[in-house]
């Protein structure tokens, strides 16, 4: 060992140090100031490019998006005609999902943060040592959880919430649970609206109202319906051919090659659930309705999004709690408060603005998140706001995705309008967050 060291050549002065020492030598002073100038130039150009990118991004969206941004855009359901296409179900879907997401995630996140920051185990005893280990593991774990791609959370949500591990029926049936295709079996009649549109021109749209009877169809199982194109003969003699794409009986759309037809069902038409084991509580028409498995419902979406934003909330709340001066805690302890009294009566009130700022930013993350909702709910052609936690939902980013991936130029413009709405909502949230932050700072000083 020692011989190996003695065989090494004598150490040279560290390269960095030598270079640094040379910095002072006037030899290349002009070159070095030139280098400095060039680098500053590069910096300014690169930074300007970043700013320019933002300007181009927002500019292109504003340019494309203003055409269809009319009052009807906020009131209409999506449509196959760009001029009639609206954002209403998506806006309400986002409101429902994000509200319940926060109702779930906020208490859990703040609770975990309180545990991490205020209940640090001291170690010592065996139990305390174990707790301490667990404590640092949780802390590390949360940072790592924040890096998990949101689509992975989507898959977890699909398995745990949407299908519930198939406990309440086979995953297939659970997934298409409510497909009650059900009413389309030969000879059955349902109260429904048939909307017919021609494929090419988007010009003709003639809603035919009244009881609609499917005379004949080759549908016999939910799964087959989902995969294959089918041939339907309507009671009025017309024949349509297409796919059933809905996962919930509230809406089934048939996409034939030449003609398109959407058949809407009212929830009261729901006759039977395909899943025999499914548990249902309450009436599907009321707010108090629960069914298991959750299916691609608002609740499943909210739970999945809660998983996505939980690490963000925990990290933000931890930082807010850490910012509370220790003297406040010590003062309260000196008055004889228990730990929870200290936390609930002094620490939490002081940290509240910080926690609120973090939560607002977490909500805006949840509002813009598309991937997990896409996995959980799929994209459905939904024409109304959710009624209860078990309703299917559309969401703003999902609807934007759907419009953006269509080939028609007009739908790109509709997508841009949607983006404008989404970005304005986020801007408002960010503004509120900044406002809260500033109020907080004023209070501390």
């Amino acid at each position, binding site marked *: 060992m020692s011989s190996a060291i003695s065989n090494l050549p004598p150490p040279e002065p560290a390269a960095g140090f030598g270079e640094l020492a040379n*910095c*002072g030598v006037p030899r290349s002073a002009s070159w*070095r100031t030139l280098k400095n100038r060039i680098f500053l130039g*590069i910096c300014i150009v690169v930074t300007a490019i*970043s700013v320019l990118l933002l300007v181009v991004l927002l500019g292109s969206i504003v340019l494309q998006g203003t055409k269809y941004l009319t009052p009807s855009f906020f009131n209409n359901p999506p449509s196959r005609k760009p001029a009639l296409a609206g954002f209403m179900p998506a806006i309400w879907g986002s409101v429902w999902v994000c509200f319940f997401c926060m109702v779930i995630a906020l208490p859990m996140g703040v609770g975990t943060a309180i545990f991490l920051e205020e209940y640090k185990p001291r170690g010592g005893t065996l139990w305390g040592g174990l707790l301490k280990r667990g404590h640092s593991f949780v802390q590390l774990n949360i940072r790592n959880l924040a890096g998990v791609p949101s689509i*992975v959370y989507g898959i977890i949500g699909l398995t745990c919430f949407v*299908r519930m591990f198939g406990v309440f029926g086979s995953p297939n049936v659970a997934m298409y649970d409510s497909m009650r295709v059900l009413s389309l079996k030969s000879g059955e009649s349902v109260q429904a609206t048939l909307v017919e549109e021609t494929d090419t021109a988007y010009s003709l749209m003639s809603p035919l109202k009244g009881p609609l009877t499917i005379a004949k169809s080759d549908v016999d199982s939910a799964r087959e319906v989902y995969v294959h194109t089918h041939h339907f003969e309507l009671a009025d003699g017309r024949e349509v051919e297409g796919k059933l794409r809905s996962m919930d009986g509230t809406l089934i759309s048939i996409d034939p090659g030449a003609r398109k037809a959407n058949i809407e069902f009212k929830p009261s038409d729901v006759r039977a659930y395909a899943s025999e084991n499914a548990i249902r509580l309450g009436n599907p028409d009321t707010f108090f309705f629960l069914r298991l498995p959750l299916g691609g419902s608002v609740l499943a979406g909210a739970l999945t999004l809660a998983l996505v934003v939980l690490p963000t909330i925990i990290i933000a709340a931890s930082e807010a709690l850490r910012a509370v001066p220790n003297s406040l805690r010590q003062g309260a302890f000196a008055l004889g408060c228990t730990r929870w009294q200290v936390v609930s009566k002094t620490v939490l009130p002081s940290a509240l603005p910080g926690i609120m700022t973090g939560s607002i930013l977490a909500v805006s993350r949840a509002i*813009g998140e*598309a991937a997990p909702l896409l996995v959980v709910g799929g994209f459905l052609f939904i024409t109304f706001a959710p009624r209860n936690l078990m309703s299917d939902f559309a969401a703003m980013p999902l609807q934007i995705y759907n419009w953006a991936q269509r080939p028609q130029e007009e739908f790109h413009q509709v997508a841009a309008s949607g983006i404008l709405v989404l970005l304005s909502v986020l801007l408002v949230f960010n503004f509120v967050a900044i406002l809260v932050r500033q109020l907080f700072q004023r209070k501390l000083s």
Partner: protein
Amino acid sequence: MSRPFRRDLLSAGRARNHAWAYRTESLITALLILLAAFSIFTTFAIIAVLLAETYRFFLMPDVTVGEFFFSGKWSPLLGGEKHFGIWPLMCGTFLVTAVSAVLALPVGLVTAVYLSEYAPAKLRAVLKPVLEILAGIPTVVYGFFALTVITPALKGLLGDQSVEGYNALSAGLAVGIMTLPIVCSLSEDALQAVPRALREGAFATGATKFDVSVKVVIPAALSGIIASYLLAIARAVGETMIVALAAGGLAQLTANPLNQVQTMTGWMVQIFLGDAPADGVEYTSCYAVGAVLFVLTFAITVIGNRVLARFREEYD
């Protein structure tokens, strides 16, 4: 700073409610431990679900473990023989990530150096919010931007024939713009954490700002910068909506970013939006692909956080 007298605090401490307070205390501690345990539970749930479903996938006909990890053919939906070799999807992910890294890593670092070392305070006050806005934009918006602005621009620049309508380059550039604020703000934090004394020492030897930034501050903050790079790369690997919109849907082994590719996340989107039946082999394959994606991003994030933790220890 004077604080109002808190009568409620005083009464809270009174011995009157001692037993009650003690009981509440243990109850709440238990509840908080339960909440914290949930985060560990989530991690294990992710791993368990992915493992179980991946196992089920490998048991299916048409699928072998060897083919999945070592074959370069991914053609499940083309009818006839189905092939599940993950490499074409990996290739797509790597290509998009590489393009994004080429854009975001240098630009992010240079912007961070500018913000931290050069920019006047007033400019900083404007630029920081700009970066925060960039960071807050939903990814679906970047996807739309890639599809409607970057791709047409590339077509105009490089010729209509050489650029496909969906391509890895435009998706990668959009992902790069998306990860730019991550690199920039984390790197800037690292640069700011370098003690002033180091800078002043270098200035005292007659160094220019450039010398100080490149030879002193960046080396001192290197671990923080590397961590920001790793976290940005992890984000790029897991990015979904941009690639779903702009990268295309053809899984192929290619090194040309002008071709269309399918990433791992892109495949999942195609299946979950598409007509594949639940329980089918394509559907289940998403769990296997998701497992690979999870392992990849989790590993990068863990390494990144390790590096970050080390850098924090140095100057705290």
